[in-house]
């Protein structure tokens, strides 16, 4: 009987193993093609956006379009909408008229790099807080009922109102010789926005394992901690990735807005404000800062894409 039962097993083995490597290869191949196609699409989208900009400039009225005295279309003159090549050329020219001034490209890159680090700090802090909240809410039913409404409520507080509070509280903090830095306030505000999607997404993910999976772990007399590490967290990954995508975007927006509303120097948010003051004399300049902010968003999205790639094993099969 052992022989008889082994036979179907080998049959299955042939059926299972035969097409399997081919399938994997095809999937991988498709993955590369997909990545290449996506890259080509974003390049095309970029070109199209530039073309639309120039196209509008070509046909749009210098005064913009007005409807019943209200301007509904932007002005297409060079002061409001400089040519794309003007903006790109502005990157190469010095930031200020003073001698020895570095180029705008350097200033914008510096700003982007500063804000990127602050946003990442906020992002990481937000993830930690969000995960912690989710774990607590999963562990204690009461905590879920008590905390979740406040988690949702937290996002209705306007950022502009929050900024001075954070700066005020932070200013009073001092740990040893380390005093509160302005960038820390910015990171905290970024984290305040970033934690929310993580908390909500992770909670759903941690609750996602079916009853029989949880009971299986219980039958092994696994501790709560072991169940968390071996079952709940891995099962939460598919819920976590989209949450991280939202959180990364929130962290970037939060960091830029927080820089502006706390008056923190050195970041891209500050540059947006500074350059916009020169907008009448030097209209192309402010757009370089906008492009810098957009690049920052892309960098943050790239970071999540990397995390997604690293956690691919935990994704449902059909999406892998």
């Amino acid at each position, binding site marked *: *009987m052992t022989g008889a039962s082994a036979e179907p097993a080998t049959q299955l*083995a042939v059926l299972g193993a035969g097409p399997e490597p081919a399938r994997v290869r095809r999937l991988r191949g498709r993955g590369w093609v997909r990545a290449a196609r996506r890259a080509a699409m974003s390049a095309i989208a970029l070109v199209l956006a530039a073309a639309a900009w120039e196209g509008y400039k070509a046909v749009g009225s210098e005064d913009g379009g007005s409807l019943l005295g209200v301007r509904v279309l932007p002005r297409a003159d060079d002061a409001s909408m400089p040519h794309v090549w003007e903006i790109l050329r502005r990157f190469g020219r010095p930031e200020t008229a003073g001698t020895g001034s570095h180029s705008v490209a350097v200033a914008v890159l510096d700003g982007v790099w500063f804000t990127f680090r602050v946003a990442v700090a906020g992002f990481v802090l937000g993830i930690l807080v969000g995960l912690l909240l989710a774990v607590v809410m999963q562990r204690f039913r009461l905590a879920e009922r008590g905390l979740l409404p406040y988690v949702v409520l937290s996002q209705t507080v306007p950022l502009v109102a929050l900024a001075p509070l954070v700066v005020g509280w932070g200013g009073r903090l001092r740990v040893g010789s380390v005093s509160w830095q302005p960038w820390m306030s910015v990171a905290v505000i970024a984290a305040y926005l970033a934690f929310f999607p993580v908390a909500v997404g992770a909670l759903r993910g941690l609750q996602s394992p*079916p009853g029989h999976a949880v009971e299986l772990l219980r*039958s092994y007399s696994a501790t709560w901690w072991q169940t968390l590490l*071996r079952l709940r967290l*891995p099962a939460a990954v598919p819920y976590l990735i989209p949450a991280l995508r939202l959180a990364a975007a929130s962290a970037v927006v939060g960091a830029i807005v927080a820089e502006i509303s706390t008056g923190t120097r050195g970041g891209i948010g500050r540059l947006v404000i500074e350059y916009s003051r020169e907008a009448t004399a030097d209209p192309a300049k402010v757009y370089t800062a906008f492009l810098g902010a957009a690049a920052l968003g892309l960098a943050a999205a790239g970071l999540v894409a990397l995390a997604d790639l690293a956690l691919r094993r935990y994704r449902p099969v059909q999406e892998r």
Partner: protein
Amino acid sequence: MLAGVGESGAGTSPAAVELTGVGKVFAGRSGEVAALAGIDLTVVVGEFVTLIGPSGCGKSTLLRLVADLTEPTAGTLRVNGKSPRQARLDQDYGIAFQQAGLMDWRSVARNIELPLELRGWDRRRRRQRAVELLELVGLPEFADHRPSELSGGMQQRVAIARALAAGPRLLLMDEPFGALDEMTRERLQAELARICRETEASVVFVTHSIPEAVYLSDRVVVMSARPGRVTRTVDVELGERTEEIRGAPEFFAKVTEVREALRGRRGAGSVAEGAQR
């Protein structure tokens, strides 16, 4: 014959499972629901016992009581001579559900290793054991595959291997073949019969299928619903399980006996009795 085995087993070691007057009442929103009442059941070491009955007869609840996944509201349970809780903490039993419930982020071998990992076995020993078990369930070349690359039947074999990982003396199975097609199902029944013979584990098996119960069991426990009670037990003495036995007249006789017990007057009587309570 079975009684003899039971007596000799009782002399040397405690019964695999011993239930005395076990009851379970669920407190629902619309009052209390009696899932089980007055269950007396002993499974001797090495015995294969199947619980069969209509939906809602509490057979799964009974299994979950033995597994300490829920607690009785009346009576006492002993598993390997211990409290169910102690037996669970000692990982005295392995369990398999209708859903294979394999973790797709782990390879097949790592799924089987999971209970061993939680017991603190080192990596080499774990892998060695997983390889052994994959051999036992006829899937030796699938150690590094993802569970999702396997068919439903193969996944269920892996789940059985996982249940056997720590070498438990007792296997608890809740309709493990319920989601499989008939062909796969019969093949896995044969596999399970062989595995039980080789590992000498005691088994408590829950099923809806009468032929499955008769084919696998030393004893079929027939239950009725509301509240769940044992209405009859049918001893099956068919000797070694081969494919031929499925066509044998003795097999059909036992199938008929179980079917009649399921429909039987005694079942009806206990339902009426249950309603009076």
